[in-house]
């Protein structure tokens, strides 16, 4: 049982290493930058999968948490805090905001929850745009590197490209692992129960409000980590990360991946984010994601992989 569960993780690790070696061999190292960035965006999508796919709560504002993580890290690092303080502090701040927002907002359901989270994202965007500390429309740049130890650092410098690729994908693997563990645990079952029927779940002893909140905060933490690390990697961050389009993209990725599928989300998110970053969609970038949203929800609500493998019970628990 454990073998079946974790074997794909080893496969992914193997694939990550293979890709890096392959790119080095083919002298195509420049792809690694976008792959690294894709990893950080995928981290957000993974967290959102837990929230939307398992707990069944929609969030149209996860770009906001990504931005909070990134900006918090940026401000703290620029102001002079050592990076080993800035990163954890940024993640903590993201978690706190998620907690504060989550407590009132998670009492809502359906459309109301969607709108409330959408409003949250836009509020974050407006605050970032309107405040000098955050650099307004230009965002923040010249963020110092995040030094880990022994020369390891999260930074955009070419020399450390390979390192950063592994750091990023290492984080994704950790996120994936913890997600898989969560999903297969009693917590994961409780979340799926909440998604299935909240009242019955409560009758079985599940503290629905607490679980929803915890999942919300956890998914925000995933996003915060992604945002903070990307800020260090890029050396900068812009207010667009909190925008509606970004938040909607994450939803599109989770939906296309199969809503409750960590692996599906991983595959779809990596592929599409990478293509988007490479400019493959050109000026139609946003339109592509809008089309994906509509297309998936109309024709393949269980995710794009359900089209490939028409089983009787799509969306099996991972």
């Amino acid at each position, binding site marked *: 049982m454990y073998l079946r569960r974790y074997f794909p993780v080893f496969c992914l690790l193997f694939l990550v290493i293979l890709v890096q070696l392959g790119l080095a061999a083919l002298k195509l190292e420049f792809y690694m930058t976008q792959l690294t960035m894709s990893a950080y965006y995928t981290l957000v999508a993974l967290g959102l999968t837990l929230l939307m796919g398992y707990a069944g709560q929609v969030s149209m504002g996860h770009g906001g948490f990504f931005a909070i993580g990134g900006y918090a890290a940026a401000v703290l690092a620029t102001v002079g805090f050592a990076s080993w303080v800035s990163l954890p502090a940024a993640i903590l701040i993201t978690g706190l905001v998620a907690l504060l927002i989550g407590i009132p907002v998670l009492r809502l359901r359906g459309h109301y929850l969607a709108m409330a989270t959408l409003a949250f994202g836009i509020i974050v965007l407006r605050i970032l745009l309107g405040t000098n500390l955050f650099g307004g429309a230009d965002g923040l740049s010249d963020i110092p590197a995040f030094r880990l130890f022994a020369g390891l650092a999260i930074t955009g410098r070419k020399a450390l490209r390979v390192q950063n690729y592994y750091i990023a994908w290492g984080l994704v693997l950790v996120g994936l692992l913890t997600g898989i*563990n969560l999903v297969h*645990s*009693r917590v994961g*079952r409780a979340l799926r129960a909440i998604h299935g*029927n909240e009242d019955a779940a*409560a*009758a079985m*002893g599940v503290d629905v409000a607490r679980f929803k909140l915890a999942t919300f905060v*956890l998914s925000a933490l995933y996003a915060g980590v992604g945002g903070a690390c990307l800020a260090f990697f890029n050396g900068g961050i812009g207010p667009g990360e909190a925008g509606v389009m970004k938040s909607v993209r994450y939803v599109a990725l989770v939906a296309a991946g199969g809503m409750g599928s960590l692996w599906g989300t991983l595959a779809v998110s990596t592929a599409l984010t990478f293509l988007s970053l490479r400019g493959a969609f050109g000026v139609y970038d946003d339109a592509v994601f809008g089309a994906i949203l509509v297309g998936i929800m109309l024709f393949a609500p269980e995710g794009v992989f359900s089209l490939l493998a028409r089983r009787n*019970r799509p969306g099996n628990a991972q």
Partner: protein
Amino acid sequence: MSRALLEVNSLHRWFGGLHVIDEVSFSCRAGIVKAIIGPNGAGKTTLFNLIAGSLAPASGSILFDGRPTGGLPPHQIARRGISRTFQATRLFPRMSVLENVMVGRHVRTRGGFMASMIGPALMGPGEKRAREACLAVLDELGAADLAGRDAASLAFGRQRVVEIARALASEPRLLLLDEPACGLNPAETEDMGALIGRIRDRGITVLIVEHDMSLVMGISDEVLVLSAGRRIAEGAPRDVQADPQVVAVYLGEADA
């Protein structure tokens, strides 16, 4: 047993202007099957919801094992040892039968988010024990072969059995069954009666809301009759059946 397992005192509840539970008091000793009957609209399911915590009483008290539970949320009441089923089965969709029952065991298992994320190293043994316990419950109910099936795909009667298994997985002291025979044919109803008897024989107190009189008369040790939110009669099945007030409420000057 000096103290009743469940004690309800002067319970009141309104829905808007409707007095749905009107000065209801009764008690239930441990180890029996007690049926709550009454015409439609008598407030039976409302009473259940009050005991199970999905509704809060306007006034009055509910004591379980001597401790008040009125106003507590459902998940805390479940933790105290009260389990329930629903009138329209509410199995969790997109989950297998075994997974459904394992959710039922939630209060008997430990491990929050942090522990769960760390994974099988911490959670493994507990998961294994929970799994075995749940399979045992299913086995006792004759449904072990259904363990891997998708809960939503089961026949109606089997779904009911699974829901009872789910409620039993938490090893409750009091089990609330909401119309367990609803929608069952006579043969299935008989099986249900036998099942309820077996549950009682295991030491679990069972409170059931039911319309099917054969089941009620056959299996209950005590019966409580409600009508229009009020307690009309309470006692052994035969006595209640003969009570003229009860007869009137069902047949004659029904004012429900």
